[in-house]
């Protein structure tokens, strides 16, 4: 075993956070004394400050009033504040999450199905191969304005943008997985009397699962990217819309609040996938006792 010194891994992680946040918070104040040390980029006008971001978070989420006083839970101030702004932080997060979820699920299901069918059929994969390569060469985000034009500024355009970035990722992984199935497994199943459908269900799908899961963590980030880009281009609600509004006001802390929320959302979604994978692919974890 390697020794990691007196500070454990967690200790280092806390230290790194503390250093980065401190530089962010107080770094620009050093400019008066040491102008050559501090780059312009640290200007809170551009990147805000942790304390300002936190204050802004409390305001945007209606936990405090704009003056900094806490909104009471029971006097209705919180509710009134939410009602005043239909794209408050909570509503924006909910709408972005909802669209991400639908984009992700439709992308995974259709990518998986297409990957499985083409992966198991040499003929179909030969026919579709040039089209898939061509469409895959398009940077999907470039399609977002067209999608918003076609589907409007409502939820549908966000779901479609999200779907289109997710579907290829899952498709290619499933396709590779379905191609690389150990022939010994399919032969064993066939000789035990399995029909083609039974082989698909009991051999092809389980052994492709490891490949599919490898694509799901990036897929969930991609789904979120798709929704945010869609919201940048045209939306009435959502976290992407919040960022655009704050940018229009030249309000860095408002944008940073949205970014931090997105980060948290991304972490939580990845963690869910990771737990699901650990359960469904539990057979991969037991290693030989020999």
């Amino acid at each position, binding site marked *: 075993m390697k020794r990691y010194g007196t500070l454990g891994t967690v200790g280092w992680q806390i230290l790194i956070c503390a250093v980065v946040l401190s530089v962010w918070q107080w770094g620009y104040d050093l400019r008066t004394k040491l102008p050559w040390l501090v780059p312009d980029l640290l200007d809170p006008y551009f990147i805000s400050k942790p304390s300002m971001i936190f204050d802004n978070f409390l305001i945007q989420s209606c936990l405090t009033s704009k003056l900094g006083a806490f909104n009471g839970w029971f006097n209705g101030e919180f509710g009134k504040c939410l009602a005043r702004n239909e794209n408050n932080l909570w509503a924006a997060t909910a709408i972005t999450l909802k669209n991400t979820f639908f984009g992700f699920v439709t992308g995974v299901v259709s990518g998986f199905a297409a990957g499985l069918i083409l992966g198991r059929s040499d003929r179909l994969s030969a026919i579709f191969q040039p089209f898939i390569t061509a469409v895959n060469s398009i940077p999907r985000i470039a399609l977002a304005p067209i999608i918003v034009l076609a589907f409007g500024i409502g939820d549908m355009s966000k779901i479609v943008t999200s779907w289109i970035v997710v579907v290829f990722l899952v498709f290619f992984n499933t396709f590779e997985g379905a191609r690389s199935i150990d022939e*010994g*497994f399919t*032969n064993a*199943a066939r000789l*035990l*009397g399995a029909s083609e459908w039974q082989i698909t269900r*009991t051999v092809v799908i389980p052994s492709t699962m490891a490949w599919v899961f490898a694509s799901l963590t990036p897929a969930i980030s991609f789904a979120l990217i798709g929704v945010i880009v869609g919201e940048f281009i045209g939306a009435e609600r959502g976290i992407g819309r919040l960022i655009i509004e704050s940018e229009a006001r030249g309000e860095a802390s408002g944008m940073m609040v949205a970014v931090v929320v997105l980060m948290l959302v991304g972490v939580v979604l990845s963690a869910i996938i990771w737990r699901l994978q650990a359960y469904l692919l539990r*057979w991969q974890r037991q290693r030989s006792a020999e």
Partner: protein
Amino acid sequence: MSALETSAIVSPRASADRRVEVKGLSKSFQLAKTTIEAVRDVTFDVRRGEFVALLGPSGSGKSTVLNMIASLIRPTGGEILIDGRRVVAGKATPNVGYVFQRDTLFPWRTVGDNIGYGLELSGVPASERKARIAECVAQAGLKGFEHAYPSALSGGMRQRAALMRTLIVEPQILLMDEPFGALDTHTKIDMHEVLLRIWEREQQTVLFVTHDLGEALTLADRIILFSARPGRIKDMFTVDFDRPRDAVKVRETPHYAELFQHIWHSLGEEFVKGRST
């Protein structure tokens, strides 16, 4: 009356007694631009309940012959009949079980679920399946490992589980492709014991591919010796040790040594030829 009897005895019984008929079988592979002749004109029969070993050096086409009988490979010439019906490549023949050289247990199923796989395919209800799995697990000495995944098992345990996955559907013909080839000597002899006991009870017709002469002598009624590539039948030997056999004790008899020496020389020639091609 007597004429009727004779005719009834001669032809139908002769064919009913032959479970597997291999007629003029040959197979060539296309590798890059050269054609490789793996098997040339192989003909033999296997009687009901007979244990036949296909013995030869690697590259002698014995596994190819077995895989053609199993319907995994399409022959280039000749035909195979099982119980009088022609084997069609790509279509599993009912009543035929196959044990692979490399255990092909599904890593995503527990040992118990692997063993019960064949029953699951044919829709045997869960309660009956459970009872039969428990029986097979006990027989294979795998008690306590039903819920483990194959990756947690040793090579010998995995091969026993794979054997049980094949046997649980009670095939009457058993095709085995060097099933114990990857095991150490002691585990191998244990497996011979397991297999002999099962075979004595169930009396399946067995075709067993191996390059290990000792293994062939321990198990088989008859040894078919294959020549180096292209694979042809070079010779056949009857192995007439008493049944039931003890996998360890049979090796200590003088008759075993005699037979071993007799076949060893012939087999050795083919190993040398196989090396030079």
